[in-house]
């Protein structure tokens, strides 16, 4: 039988990957720079983190190195798009190829690393049962605690903090206002003495750091190990799609991330049971139908983008006005 609690719980755990990557991309795009290299940066992060622990390092050191590696890669994107005014799409693709290539070269042989130290799971079900025994008696609250708190890797909680923090930063603080102004109307921001280049560098870097964190989340917590390109399996691209779905809002990015995380788990669980909702489960009896389940996250990304495009047209929502355009001081235009 399909256990929805487990699916949602796993959705939060693996959705944290998409959450980090998508919020990083939200910040970069809010400053006017689109970075399509998320997949490559994530993969580099995943490889760096796993390599660190495979060589006996601490998992937290792995997380830090992962973020630094992906951050360094993102600075190349900043250099080429901000200073050299290269096309952001092509530079992002290049970042992607470099990230994927570098990870496969430096991750050579890493898949045979054996067991390594992973990120901790601080709150287990037994701990909660022992300390707050009455909690399991409260129906809805207990299920929420199971989904959101229990048996989650530690970065899930970091994700809980990041979402409101990012939202508050973007919408309610002065630096957040500067960030938005640089992405909407860089010439005006420049005239007010805000460093357009400096801020774009900063937020591209933050996007890279978070993509690296997302990669480390995969290889050290969600699905530990190094499986070359399959480690990320297109999640970086889904994260970019989520940014559009989220309309550049951290809350919606988080919700989308968790939803896609849950779908990934649902796909696995749908192939398990013999009976499904009282019917013979076609995915159990005809395993090759599982290939259609594997298409689901990617097809769903397209469907979600189509749905949100109508919403965007209706509500006149949209991308940051200067997204994708290099800023050249002294030239006309935004």
């Amino acid at each position: 039988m399909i256990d929805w609690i487990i699916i949602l719980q796993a959705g939060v755990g693996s959705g944290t990957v998409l959450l980090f990557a998508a919020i990083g991309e939200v910040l970069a795009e809010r400053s006017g720079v689109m970075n399509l290299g998320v997949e490559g940066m994530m993969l580099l992060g995943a490889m760096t983190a796993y390599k660190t622990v495979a060589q006996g390092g601490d998992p937290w050191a792995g997380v830090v190195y992962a973020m630094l590696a992906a951050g360094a890669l993102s600075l190349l994107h900043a250099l080429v798009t901000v200073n050299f005014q290269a096309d952001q799409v092509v530079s992002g693709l290049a970042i992607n190829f470099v990230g994927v290539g570098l990870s496969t070269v430096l991750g050579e042989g890493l898949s045979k690393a054996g067991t390594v130290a992973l990120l901790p799971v601080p709150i287990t079900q037994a701990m909660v049962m022992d300390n707050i025994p009455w909690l399991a008696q409260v129906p809805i609250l207990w299920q929420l605690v199971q989904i959101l708190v229990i048996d989650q890797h530690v970065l899930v909680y970091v994700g809980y903090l990041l979402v409101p923090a990012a939202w508050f930063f973007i919408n309610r603080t002065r630096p957040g206002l500067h960030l938005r102004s640089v992405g909407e109307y860089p010439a005006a921001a420049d005239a007010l003495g805000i460093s357009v280049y400096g801020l774009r560098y900063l937020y591209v870097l933050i996007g890279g750091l978070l993509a690296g964190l997302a990669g480390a989340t995969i290889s050290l917590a969600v699905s530990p190990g190094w499986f070359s390109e399959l480690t990320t399996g297109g999640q970086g691209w889904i994260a970019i799609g989520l940014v559009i779905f989220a309309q550049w809002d951290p809350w919606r990015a988080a919700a989308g991330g968790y939803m896609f995380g849950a779908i990934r788990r649902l796909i696995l669980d749908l192939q398990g049971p013999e009976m499904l909702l009282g019917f013979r489960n076609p995915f159990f009896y005809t395993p090759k139908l599982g290939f259609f389940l594997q298409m689901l996250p990617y097809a769903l990304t397209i469907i979600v983008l189509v749905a949100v495009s109508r919403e965007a047209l209706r509500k006149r929502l949209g991308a940051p006005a200067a997204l994708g355009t290099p800023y050249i001081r002294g030239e006309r235009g935004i």
Partner: protein
Amino acid sequence: MSASTTTPSQPEQRHLRDLLRLPFRIVVEPRMNVPRWLAPATSIGAVILALVIGGVVIQFAGGDPLESYAHIFNAAFGSVGVFSDTLVKATPLILTGLACTLAFRMRLWNIGAEGQFFMGAWGASAVVLAPLLPATTPRSIMLSAMMLAGFACGALWGLVPGFLKARLNVSEIITSLMMNYIATSWVLFWVFGAWSDAGFQMSPVFPETAWLPRLTDYANQVSDLAGLTLHLGLVFGIVAAVLVWFILNRSRWGYEIRLTGDNPQAARYAGINIVRNTVLVMMLSGGLAGLAGMSEIAGVVHRLQGSISPGYGFTGIIIAWLAKLNAFGVILVAILFGGLLLAGREIQPSGVPRMLQGIILFTVIASDVVLRYHIRIVRR
């Protein structure tokens, strides 16, 4: 080079801030005109720079860069036999490179050539395996039907992102990329299921009527051709390059495509039907990538299986950009990259060709700054 050119009163000049107090400074100013030799020279310089950077990484990863590069060169261009193999690898790259060139020229970011390649291979296989035509069909009819089916399936895969872009303004970057994953799962569904060869994860070998003619097939007439696997697909690639060049540079439609790419606003005012052109360009681009898939399985693999592409569709993106979106340049660059792919299979660590491709693309786009700005070093 008078002092007045560096005064701040001229706003179009930008000074890279000297990080340390060096005895010279770098002056960057926009170029008014670009000498003709500069564009190819920067491309070549960028590739050399990429090889140097790649060499550092190879050294760092425990390999020997010079030996690796020498090996790549010999294994790709060292003899007629390996050069024929290089051209075989280049064949699908020419077609996917052209697919990307066409779409990129209109600033349509079709990064779904990989999926379109797989769908083309699937469509061509369907003719043989479904079977739509019996194995005894004459070769010319069989191959024509496979070409048509491959082109159509690739075009269908380009149609979806094209239509969504044109009608709903959905980013074709993400949709075309997502279609890649759907295409590979779709191919695996058939390879593991209805078309599986006795439970193996591949289809049975096609009948010889579905094989593109190879040079080695004529070895009994010209003995020197024995063992050369070069197949007719290369001719598809060259013909396609001529067609794409003609469309882009000599036809009214190509003018519309280029104008839309350079200045969509002006194109709209000029009354160009951007919606229709978006859909058509994406379909033609997808069709070319689909033809690459057909050529690869009819010319090389001779069966459908999951691993038919080491990323031909993605490499096509790099090739198109390195060739500066010039159809004939694509042929040249594709041959170089074909050699890289061919030789790269044997060198360790195994990811080197992929990494080099990425670094080359990166240095090429970074080097464009030399075309737009005049960079001088001036003494203080």
